[in-house]
């Protein structure tokens, strides 16, 4: 398939892996980049300009915690200067009003603030820090400026029971948009999966609650949700298809088709320090590897849904079936669906074990906390 028939619409700029939070479901890779290998300001400025020339419309600044970059204001200004829509995905730590004013002044369009729970105690357990109160202060501050605010609640088995309280908190804060995004099982979440995956009944109940909230808040707050795909009948259209719509650049400058692509063995990623974004998008073997439909195995190859879900997620195929070119194992048509069902069954046993020891306080749970790289 000709690369020219695909145009990237979004650039995900992972400015740093440094982060004051230690979330047990962080989407960053297990091997985190250190500060000294991070791209310098001028390289990001060039990358943003090249992205706009490629037709990219929005830059999502994420990390790690992008606020850890002292040059964030300059980078956001460069994004707007290039004609991009600038989104900041942040924990809000550390952020005071003075710096926030500078960020808004640089042209930020949208801020997405992450929440780990509806209250401090459980949020602290999952983020490994006490930051809930600061997040509430940041939300209050953002509301005083003319930029869009999204609240993003990261959902999993441990906090699905707080969904009603989270919805109430969102109503109280009053953002334009709220997202209840279930943890996706890559990176740190994959390592902590046995304690994060919800049960089917839990999920069904939460979905009913979310649909009611969506109706009730229509026209006031846009409610969106992402469900864990382990319970789906068909896979998600991961990244809108490999190398079709999105480009991600890591803190050290590797250009990847998605957050997790480096789990696939043998993938080589070009670096923005040595090649232009256009050249990487059009020619790099990594972006071409699963682009289009030529790579597809059965049952995808002859499936009517192949133009909707593009075969699902390549990283998940590798993580479960040990074959990145297999149909996403969550698909009910996949010959590997048994892997997913056996994981769900195993998690069920884990839950039974937890329930047998109710005396165990939550803080004794052994999480793999994500460290903060130097």
């Amino acid at each position, binding site marked *: 398939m000709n690369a020219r028939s695909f145009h990237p619409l979004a650039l995900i700029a992972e400015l740093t892996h440094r982060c004051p939070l230690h979330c047990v479901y962080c989407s960053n890779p297990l091997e985190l980049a250190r500060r000294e290998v991070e791209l310098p300001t001028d390289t990001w400025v060039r990358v943003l300009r090249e992205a706009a020339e490629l037709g990219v419309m929005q830059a999502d600044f994420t990390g790690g915690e992008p606020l850890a970059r002292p040059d964030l204001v300059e980078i956001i200004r460069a994004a707007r200067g290039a004609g991009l829509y600038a989104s900041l995905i942040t924990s809000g730590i550390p952020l005071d009003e003075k710096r926030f004013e500078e960020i808004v002044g640089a042209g930020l369009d949208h801020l997405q603030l992450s929440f780990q729970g509806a209250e401090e105690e459980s949020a602290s357990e999952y983020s490994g820090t006490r930051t809930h109160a600061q997040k509430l202060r940041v939300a209050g501050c953002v509301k005083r400026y*003319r930029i*869009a605010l*999204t609240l993003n609640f990261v959902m999993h088995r441990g906090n699905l029971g707080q969904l009603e309280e989270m919805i109430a908190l969102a109503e109280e804060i009053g953002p334009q948009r709220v997202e209840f995004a279930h943890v996706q099982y890559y990176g740190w979440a994959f390592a902590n999966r046995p304690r994060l995956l919800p049960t089917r009944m839990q999920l069904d109940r939460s979905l009913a609650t979310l649909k009611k909230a969506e*109706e009730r808040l229509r026209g006031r707050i*846009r409610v969106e949700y992402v469900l864990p795909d382990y319970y789906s009948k068909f896979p998600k259209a991961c990244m809108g298809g490999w190398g079709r719509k999105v480009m991600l650049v890591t803190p050290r400058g590797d250009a990847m088709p998605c957050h997790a692509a480096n789990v696939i063995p043998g993938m080589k990623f070009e670096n923005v320090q040595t090649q232009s974004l256009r050249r990487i998008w059009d020619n790099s073997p990594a972006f071409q590897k699963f682009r289009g439909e030529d790579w597809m195995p059965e049952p995808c190859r002859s499936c009517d849904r192949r133009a909707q879900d593009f075969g699902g997620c390549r990283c998940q195929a590798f993580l479960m079936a040990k074959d990145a070119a297999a149909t996403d194992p969550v698909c009910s048509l996949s010959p590997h669906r048994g892997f997913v069902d056996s994981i769900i069954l195993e998690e069920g046993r884990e839950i039974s074990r937890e329930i047998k020891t109710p005396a165990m306080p939550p803080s004794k749970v052994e999480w793999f906390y994500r460290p903060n790289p130097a």
Partner: protein
Amino acid sequence: MAPTVLPDPEKRPRLAPGCRLAENAQQPRALQMPERVLQLNGPSLEIVQRCDGKHTVREIILDLQQIYTKTDPLKVEQDILEYLTLLQEQRALDFE
């Protein structure tokens, strides 16, 4: 399903914070908002350009009826109300 609320003809729609026309010359005529892009055709661009907090819904309808003289004015009115409702459900508009 909650009933749809049509916009009040005397209210002045204004693009909500973080919702604006695209500035990338490669992608003209698009409305950008958090995690979403709406491609605009001729009439929808005419509507969005008037969502500036100055024009009332009624004025937008009268303006577009003047521009699209070949279209039945009732249809122009209906299309505008539907489009404004859609934008409101995306939280792309505030009404002042």
